[in-house]
């Protein structure tokens, strides 16, 4: 594969987002993402509870 193609392939998605969407459009968050942030916070709380038990 051509070197230039490789570079393009690695950053393809981010480059496409930058080219086709404005900053305001990129600020929008999907409901699914908010749900995943919620799961991450539950993960954080679990780790902190683990610290309480272990440390």
């Amino acid at each position, binding site marked *: 594969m051509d070197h230039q193609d490789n570079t393009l392939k690695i950053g393809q998605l981010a480059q496409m987002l*930058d080219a086709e969407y404005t900053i305001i459009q990129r600020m929008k968050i999907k409901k699914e993402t908010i749900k995943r942030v919620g799961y991450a916070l539950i993960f954080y709380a679990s780790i902190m509870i683990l610290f309480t038990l272990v440390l």
Partner: protein
Amino acid sequence: MYELFPVIILLAFLFETMDSSAGMGFGTGLTPLLFLLGYDPLQVVPILLLSEAITGFTSSYFHQEFQNVSFSFHRPFNQATKTMGIIAITGCFAIILSVILTYAALQLSKSFIKTYVAILVLAMGIIGMIRLKSKESRYRPKLLTAFAALAGFNKGIGAGGYGPVVMMGQLFSGIYEKTATAIVSLAEGIVSLFGFASFIFIAAYGLTIDYVLLPSIFTGGFIAAILSPYLVRVFPNKMWRILIPIYAILMGVLSLAKVMNIIS
């Protein structure tokens, strides 16, 4: 019951925000600052490695969620995953080699290591600024492997300088800034986990790791690891293209000033 330190939470948040947004700064910036606050290496280094491992995986997950990168974890691996693999595997081997060379064979002096890392980061920041004028970027996997080895070596000798070297190495190898940040987050997570495992191994032979800072560093770092990928997505790449080399120069200058005792 553990104690949470608001100042440490704030510092961890600020440095992890920069680390997950610009690909560098958590280890290189926070380690000397915590030493200045009076904490011992065994209260700082293994805790930063463990925290960086968790936040590295978290931020790379959210980089993928916010589409700064697209990793594929099933065969055939895509180019981003292969690049991350090159960086992480080379970094893991380099970390073992550097630990052996530093602590068993060569006994390099701390000031020599710190001066070398500071000059290296400064030079890479300056080259990054010069590179801003060049519009052409070419994918160079061999150059990337060399930078990954150098970065892993830096991390193993405990003087920081993994993120800046790998990040600038990726940019010199032609990788898009936003994606390079995401790749370095995951690679650093893997290498840090490896580094922390080495400490656990040494701890089995009598070394005591102090976990007092872990809840505070983890709290600040974890929140930043979610927020930063979002910032990377929202702000234009042009901004990161300028900000990253400037930040590298700043890190290099501050490290050099500290080595030369201009700042204490």
